[in-house]
C-alpha cells in the first residue's frame, strides 16, 4: 500500500475509533476510571487528555517493539509483559519530564498519570492494534481516535452526572448502577453512527 492510501485508511480508522467503534462504549475498555472519575467535567477532561497522549504514544512504541523485536525473535506470546513494561516506563518518563519542564501541566495531568498505567484502555488498544494487524501509520490514527473517543465518552458522562447530583435515585441504583444505565443509553446513541463509515 502506498503512503497516501495508508493515510486515508488511518483517517477512516481514527474516525471509526471515535464514533462507530468507540473504545469505551463498544469495547468496554477503561471502564474503571470511567465509572470512578466521572463525577466532575474538569477532572474527566484532565484524565481524558492524559489518556489521549499516553494511548497514542504507547500504541506507536508498542508497534515498533512488537514488529522489530518480538516478531523477528518469534516471541509473540511475550507481548503482554513487553507492552505493560513499555506503558509503565513511558508513563514514568512522561511524569519525570513534565515535573522538570512544565509544573503547570504536571499539576493538571500529573495526578492522573500513575492511574493510567493500569487503565485497560491503554493495554487494550495496543492488543487490538496487534490483532487487527495495523500498519504504523494506521496505528497512529487508531491510537489518536481511541483516545479522543474515550475523552468524548467520559466528558459526556461527567456532564450528565453533574446534572444528576440533585436527583432522587433509588438507593440500590445510586453510584455505579445509574452510571451504567447512562452508559447504556450513550452506547445506544453511538450505535446511531453505525453505517456512517463504510471503509472499516
Amino acid at each position, binding site marked *: 500500500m502506498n503512503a497516501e492510501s495508508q493515510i486515508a485508511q488511518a483517517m477512516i480508522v481514527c474516525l471509526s475509533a471515535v464514533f462507530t467503534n468507540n473504545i469505551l*462504549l*463498544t*469495547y*468496554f*475498555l*477503561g*471502564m*474503571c476510571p470511567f*465509572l*470512578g472519575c466521572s463525577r466532575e467535567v474538569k477532572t474527566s477532561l484532565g484524565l481524558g487528555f492524559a489518556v489521549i497522549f499516553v494511548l497514542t504514544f504507547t500504541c506507536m512504541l508498542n508497534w515498533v517493539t512488537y514488529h522489530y523485536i518480538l516478531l523477528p525473535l518469534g516471541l509473540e*506470546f*511475550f*507481548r*503482554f*509483559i513487553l507492552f*505493560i513494561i513499555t506503558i*509503565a516506563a513511558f508513563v514514568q518518563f512522561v511524569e519525570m519530564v513534565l515535573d522538570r519542564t512544565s509544573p503547570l501541566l504536571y499539576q493538571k495531568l500529573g495526578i492522573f498519570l500513575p492511574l493510567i498505567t*493500569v*487503565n*485497560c484502555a*491503554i*493495554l*487494550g488498544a495496543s*492488543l*487490538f492494534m496487534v*490483532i487487527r494487524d495495523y500498519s504504523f501509520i494506521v496505528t497512529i490514527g487508531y491510537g489518536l481516535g481511541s483516545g479522543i473517543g474515550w475523552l468524548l465518552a467520559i466528558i459526556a458522562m461527567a456532564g450528565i452526572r453533574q446534572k444528576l447530583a440533585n436527583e432522587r435515585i*433509588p*438507593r*440500590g*441504583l445510586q*453510584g*455505579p*448502577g*445509574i452510571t*451504567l*444505565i447512562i*452508559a*447504556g*443509553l450513550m*452506547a*445506544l446513541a453511538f*450505535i446511531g453512527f453505525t453505517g456512517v463509515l463504510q471503509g472499516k
Partner: protein
Amino acid sequence: MAVAGEKSEINKIISDGIWQSNPIFKQVLGICSTLAVTNLVLNTMVMCIALAFTLSLSAATVSAMRRSTPRNVRMMVETLIIAFYVIIVDVLLKAYWPQMSNSLGPYVGLIITNCIVMGRCEAYANSQPIGRAFLDGLFNALGYSFVLLIIAVFRELFGMGTLLGYQMPYFSGPHWGKWIIMVMPPGAFFMLAIVTWILRSIQMTREDKQK
C-alpha cells in the same frame, strides 16, 4: 482456639469474596471483561475459569514472595507475576482452543489490567499467608463468576434464544422476537446495571434488618 480462629477467618474470606464485598456489584471492579464477554455463556465460563486461575495463583505467588519483594517495586513485581499466569492461559487457549481464543480477543490479555486481580494482590495477598491468599483469590473469582453467569444467561437467552449454543424451547420459537440489543454493547450496560441494582438492594435490605 487457634483452629476456631482459622475457621472463622476462612468463613469471612468466603462471605466477603462472594457476597459482602463482591468485586462486581459492591466494589465495581473488573467491569471491562464483565461487559465484553457476557454475550455468550460459553465465553463467559472460559473467562471465569481463566480469571479464577490467574487470580488465585497470582495471589498465592504474591503472598509467597511478600517478604522478598522490596516495597518500592512491589506494583511492578505484582504486575509481572499476573502477566506470567495470563501468558500461560493465553498460550494454552491458543494451542488447544484457537476458536475461543479468537472470540475472546484481547480480553484474556486484559486480565493483567483487571482491577480485581491487582486489587486483591494489593489489599490482601501481600500481607497474608499463602493459603489464605489463595482462598481469597479463589472466592473473589467465584463472586465475579456468579454475577457474570447471571448476566450472560439473560443476555444469550433474550438476545439469541439459546443457552450454551443450544436452542431453548420458547425463546428460539416464533413467539419470541429476539432482543438483538441484548447481545450488543448497550444490553451489557443495562443488564449489569439491573443486576447491580437488584443485588445491592437485597444486600441493603438485609443490612437494615440486622440493625
